């Protein structure tokens, strides 16, 4: 039984300033103990030393689109290296007048990717749309019809090469990896041994050595006069490499599946293919989305390794720009640009994977 007069006569004080609001947060998180307070002060000093100079170098004293000579007179960043060389950085050795073709191909690719992100578009027709899109892209890149001069695959470079190696690498490696994982768990000794050998051998060597082998060793074994396209060899090496890592991650997911799921599927009379396709893989693949995406992101960035077999992806074309005496010395700006480019692509992929995980969580 509360006495109203007692309730109103009580003094309702405000909490101390250092406990609420911004001050409260600072007090609770940054200055709560003596070593935290010390750390905070040290870090703030560090930031004070680093951030304003970087900011003025990057944004205040910088030039964004000037000839090379103008860059020598300033203290700030010379971002003009990018716009002035953009067509080489993005399209590499593709002939000058034809660069609208790879540009259009990349635009089409991005368009298809954005279209496919929406789960409402995941119908059978999507496969057909991609097939048509890929044909159009191949025609644009290779040429030969409609009056477009032929551009050999060896001249494909820059962003189209990076995207192509990454996209086909990811799309082909994933199913191959799933098959390898299933094979490794199989009861049939021949299949299991083959899969184990494949996975362990591929995982035991760096991607660079696989690219070397594809580019230098492999042609030695081919009969006289038969050559296989260099870009194709690099593509196969990337696919084989990524598939081995995907296989192990998927195997982890399969191991996490409770035995009861297999037993329930068996007792309904489902055969192996049906059990895997309808019951086990949908659940297992969903569980391993985080590590799978990590592997695919690595695959995307590993496309830069094709520089070792003289294929010019976007990293290499940027480096080549720097070897031009006009632009040497501005490597910081060039690599920051590349880092931002890779970051944008990788962040887009990883935020899509988070969205995918959220969507697929329904029902669980």
């Amino acid at each position, binding site marked *: 039984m509360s006495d109203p007069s007692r309730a109103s006569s009580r003094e309702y004080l405000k909490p101390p300033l250092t406990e609420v609001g911004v001050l409260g947060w600072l007090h609770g998180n940054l200055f709560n103990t003596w070593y935290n307070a010390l750390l905070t002060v040290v870090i703030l000093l560090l930031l004070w030393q680093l951030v304003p100079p970087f900011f003025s170098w990057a944004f205040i004293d910088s030039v964004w689109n000037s000839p090379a000579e103008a860059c020598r007179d300033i203290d700030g960043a010379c971002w003009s290296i990018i716009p002035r060389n953009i067509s080489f950085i993005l399209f590499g050795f593709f002939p000058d007048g034809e660069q609208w073709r790879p540009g259009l191909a990349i635009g089409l690719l991005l368009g298809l990717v954005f279209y496919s992100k929406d789960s409402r578009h995941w119908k059978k027709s999507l496969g057909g749309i991609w097939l048509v899109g890929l044909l159009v892209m191949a025609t644009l890149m290779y040429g030969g019809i409609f009056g477009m001069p032929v551009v050999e695959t060896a001249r494909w470079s820059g962003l189209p090469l990076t995207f192509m190696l990454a996209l086909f690498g990811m799309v082909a490696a994933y199913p191959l990896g799933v098959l390898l994982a299933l094979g490794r768990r199989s009861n049939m000794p021949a299949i299991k041994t083959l899969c184990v050998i494949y996975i362990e051998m591929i995982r035991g060597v760096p991607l660079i050595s696989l690219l070397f082998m594809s580019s230098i060793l492999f042609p030695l074994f081919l009969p006289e006069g038969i050559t296989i396209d260099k870009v194709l060899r690099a593509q196969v090496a990337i696919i084989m490499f990524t598939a081995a890592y995907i296989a192990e991650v998927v195997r982890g997911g399969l191991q996490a599946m409770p035995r009861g799921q297999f037993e329930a599927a068996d007792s*309904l009379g489902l055969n192996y293919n049906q059990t895997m396709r309808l019951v086990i893989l949908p659940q297992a693949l969903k569980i391993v989305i985080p590590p799978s995406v990590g592997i695919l992101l690595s695959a995307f960035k590993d496309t830069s390794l094709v520089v070792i077999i003289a294929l010019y992806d976007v990293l290499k074309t940027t480096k080549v720009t720097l070897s031009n005496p006009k632009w040497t010395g501005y490597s910081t700006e060039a690599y920051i640009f590349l880092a931002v480019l890779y970051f944008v692509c990788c962040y887009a992929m990883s935020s899509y994977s988070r969205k995918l995980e959220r969507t697929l969580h329904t029902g669980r």
Partner: protein
Amino acid sequence: MKETENRSASVPAAAPIIEVNSMHKWYGEFHVLSDINLQVKLKERIVICGPSGSGKSTLIRCINRLEEHQRGQIIVNGTELSNDIKNIEKVRAEVGMVFQHFNLFPHLSILDNLTLGPIWVRKTPKKEAEEMAMAYLDKVHIAEQADKFPGQLSGGQQQRVAIARSLCMKPKVMLFDEPTSALDPEMIKEVLDVMIELAEEGMTMLVVTHEMGFAKSVADRVMFMDYGQIVEQNTPAEFFDNPRHERTKLFLSQIL
């Protein structure tokens, strides 16, 4: 609970639907099932009880080849169980199983859980499979949950869905592996009621359970297993009132 009555007169005398002859099973060196001989006639209801580790779950899992036996014969619906995958799949299509932990497919809706088997194993068209699924969901009194997912249902509801899922394959025999052992007492009744209804409609059932009330009211035969052997089997009346072996008496004294 209904009074036990001698039901052997109502069971048709025909060829047994399940025949187990001198079956032995080992897990490595451990002899888990020893000289099992069992005949199950159509429409018979058999309850298997016994202490844990006695091999009762292993026995019924051998019948639909979730476990393999090393010696002896198991013949289900005229097909002998061997390593031939075709035979195994034939048997599994006629034998339904309900598990202790339900084992529903969590990534599919309830309706999809039920239609998966008919669509992919019996090649039933989707529409027909869905109608049949709704009818069975209705039968287990859970039709309103058809679009939900297993994670959204209670244990008793999930087990009833699991029973409906097995029924959709129109099996000749239903195996129940401790169907109520993972349930709360309130939910046990709703599942047992469904099983009693099934039994009264004439489904052949092998039930591993500790629910002796169910055994008394529905079973044609109660079987006691211990250390991998069938110690005693009899009609419920005889089994509960006149157990013959010492081990049976000991077991009954502990659980009743």
